[in-house]
Every structure is written in C-alpha cells, then in structure tokens.
C-alpha cells in the first residue's frame, strides 16, 4: 500500500516509477494499491488519469477537514478503478467527474461517510464508450443537525452500446437530519443495463430488538449497526479498518 498525501492542498512529493505526479495531476501507469489522504486541506482540485489496462485500488481518507473538492478521473481502455472512500469531516462540497473513456473500462465507487455538518456531493459518471460499466454505492450516516445532499448523474449518450450502470445510495439518519438523494440517469441509448436505488431512513427498530434479544445493550447494538453500515461498503485492510473503527468508537462515547 502506497500513500499519497495532500497536505494543505499540496500534493506531497512522491516517488514511484509507476505513477507521475505533476502539479495537481496524478497519472497511474501500472497496477497498484494506493491511499490518498487529505490532511489539513480545504480546496482540492485533482486530475487523476488511469492508463490503458491498469487496475487501481484507491482508498481516500479524510477526517476533520472543511473540504471543497473538484476531482476529475479519466479511465482508459480496459482500465479498472476500485475507489473506496471514508470521510468524517466538518463540511464538504465535493464534485467528482469520472469519464469512462476506454472500451471495457470499469468503475467501482464505494463511499462511506459520517456527516456532522453540511455536506453536498455531486458525482457525474460519463459512459463515453461501448461496453463500459459503473457501480456506485454511497452509504452516509447523518448525525443530529447535519445536512446531506447526494446527487449522482449517470450519463450515457446515444451510440455507446452495451454499457452497464448501477447506482445505490443510502442515508441513515441519527437524529434530525436534512437528507436528500437525487439519483439521475441520463440515458439516450437503448442498449443498456441500468438500475438504481435510494433509501433515506433511520435504523430499523427490529434490528435493534434482535441484537438486544441476544443480550447486547441498545448503545452497543447501535454501534454494531453503524459499523456494519459503514464497513459493508468498504473493502479495506486491517489498518484502515482500525482507523475507521476508532472514529466510530469516539463518536459513540
């Protein structure tokens, strides 16, 4: 696992023959497993290119920031981006544009967050070639008095046949939360497989009852359910798991 850090909105100097970092651009030239971490950052503007035939597993971590982000990903022929993100920030205004430019390129976008302030996310996935596919899964927990807006636009122009697109977003509210999900699918091509789902809701009392009926206290039951909600969306190693778990534990204290 290699870590790229953005500290105070500046990409740290990073030496790896497989990637090129230039100003605000990261180019991945061969397969790899990377972590991108925002430290003390506010305005972030990144271009991320993934070359042909390259598979990248990228974990993005941000904790305690006030973020304003514009990130632009471009995927080449047969490239594969597996993106896992975890945020626990003060406020977020994030715009992500993902261009699936090469045939057979694939995006797996998995975002989990715990929100305590005002957070707005706009994710645009452009399916710019035949046989490209995207799978987007957002799982956000809204703490009391938080505001979350998720807008996901899956875009497919006429002529790009045999594409597959899936988007699924859930916001779990803990207290008084203003939660909005806007799941858009702008599709002009008939030859496509597309599905989406959006849910805003509280923790099901039946789930809490089941856990409590096994001797687990209500407080511990809610913690287990929060952990489950967040981790069910993230495939991460033990070190990252421990960091996220620590955030949840601190939150529940």
């Amino acid at each position, binding site marked *: 696992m290699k870590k790229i850090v953005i500290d105070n909105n500046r990409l740290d100097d990073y030496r790896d023959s497989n990637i090129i970092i230039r100003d605000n651009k990261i180019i991945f030239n061969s397969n790899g497993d990377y972590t991108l971490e925002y430290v003390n950052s506010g305005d972030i503007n990144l271009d991320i290119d993934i070359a042909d035939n390259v598979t990248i597993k990228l974990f993005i971590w941000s904790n305690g920031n006030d973020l304003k982000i514009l990130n632009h990903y471009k995927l080449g022929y047969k490239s594969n981006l597996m993106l896992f993100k975890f945020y626990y920030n003060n406020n977020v205004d994030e715009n992500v544009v993902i261009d699936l430019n090469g045939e057979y390129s694939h995006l797996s976008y998995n975002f989990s967050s715990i929100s305590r302030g005002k957070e707005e996310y706009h994710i645009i996935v452009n399916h710019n070639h035949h046989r490209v596919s995207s799978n987007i899964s957002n799982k956000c927990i809204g703490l009391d008095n938080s505001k979350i807006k998720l807008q996901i636009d899956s875009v497919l122009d006429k002529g790009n046949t045999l594409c597959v697109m899936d988007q699924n977003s859930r916001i779990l509210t803990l207290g008084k939360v203003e939660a909005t999900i806007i799941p858009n699918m702008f599709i002009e091509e008939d030859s496509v497989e597309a599905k989406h789902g959006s849910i805003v809701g509280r923790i099901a*009392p*039946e*789930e809490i*009852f*089941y*856990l*409590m*009926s*096994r*001797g*687990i*206290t*209500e407080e*511990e*039951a809610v913690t*287990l*359910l929060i*952990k*489950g*909600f*967040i*981790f*069910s*969306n993230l495939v991460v190693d033990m070190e990252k798991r421990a960091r996220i778990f620590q955030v949840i534990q601190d939150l529940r204290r």
Partner: protein
Amino acid sequence: MKLEIKDLAVEIDKKLILDKFNLDVEEGSIHVIMGPNGVGKSTLSRVIMGDENYHVIEGDILFESSSIVKLKTDERSRKGIFLAMQSPMEIDGVSNQDFLRTAISQKNEERVGLYQFIKSVEEAVSDLNMNKDLIHRSLNVGFSGGEKKKNEVLQIKLLKPSLIILDELDSGLDVDSLRIVCENILKYKRENPSTAILIITHYSMILEYLRPDYVHILANKHIIKTGDYNLVSDIEKNGYGKYLETKNTYGEDCL
C-alpha cells in the same frame, strides 16, 4: 429457573391481544403453545422478551421469582431468556462473528478470548452441520431458511440460556434440517437439564423430537386447555374446533 405469567393483559395499538393469561413454566420442563392463526402465540413470545411495541397493561411476568416486565430486552436476555425467532433479522454489514462475540462478551461481562470463541464456534458449527463460511458473513444475509434457524440454535449453544422460546422454529426447515436442529436442542438440554423450553408451533412434527411435558391451546386471549402429549394427537386428528366451541374457565365463549 421458573417462568410465571400471572393474569397478563397485553395490547398493541390499543388492541387487546392477551388477557387473563396465566402460565407456569417449571425448571427443566418443555411446554408447547398451539392454537389457530392470529390468536397471539408469537405476541406472547415477544412480550416475554420485552418487545416495546407490546404494552403490558395488567399482570406480571416473573423470571426466577423476580418481575421482568420493567426490564429492557437485553437485560432479560442476560438473565437467561432466549427467543429463537420465526424470521431472524438479516443485518447487512454486521458479521455473524462480530455479533456473536459481542453478545457473549456482554453476557459474560468480559471480552471473550479469541481462541476460546473460535473453539466454541467451530464445535457448534460442526454439530449443526453448518457451512463454516456462514460465521464470517453478514448476519443472516443470504442465508437459506434452514441456515437462519441453525444460526439461531448456534446462538443458543453459545449464549447458554436457561429459558428457550422457540417461535415456529419448524417454519422454513426441511425434514433433515429440522432433525439436526432438534437434536442439537436436545443435546443442549441434556447438558443443561434445568433449561426450560417453551415451543410455539402449528405442527406436530417438531414435537415428535422435542416431546413436551405440557400442551396448551391458546385462544380467546388466554390458555383454554392444557393437557399432555396426547392432546397434540387429538388436535392433529380433529383440529381446534371442539375446544373453541366450549366455554373457557371464565365462562366466556372461545374465539
């Protein structure tokens, strides 16, 4: 262990479900509650477990001679009551392993050691002829009906309750799975002879394995008839009709 239910009246959404309900379950005994659909059999199990959707408006439930009606569900569980549910919850993201380890730790009031936990789970999983992978998967998610019920019995073996309530354990189980599940409950009972079992069912097949000492018919909000195992055969042959046509002990028409 003794469970005593005294003159219990229970309502949900202002509708009376149980009334003047009485039942004594002695240590080590096996009871079955049978009755037509919708008479409140599952309600009874959830009231004993402390489901807050049901309101006890009269009467009392004593467990080991102490009232439990004011206790929360988790407190009742830690006292030794276990409800094997008709439709166990599927909880995405919460691994079976994480859930079990948390439950055992909370019951024992200390974090269970990993080695001891794995050893106990492996033994129980083997006894139940369960797929070992199920322990690492999300709780009950994608489990077949039979796997869910085996998972309930796995929890019994690990949490070691002194009162087991089986709410339609037989639903969703094929013949072989029903046999395995019942054999494991009987094995648990042999190892823990003071454990009492309260079975809620529509069918006699489970009772061929878990021979009850007492058979109760629930109708008109309370128990209208109590007998021994012969009562099961009679219900199987003739249905509930002749019992429902009679007056109950309060002189009221049944149903």
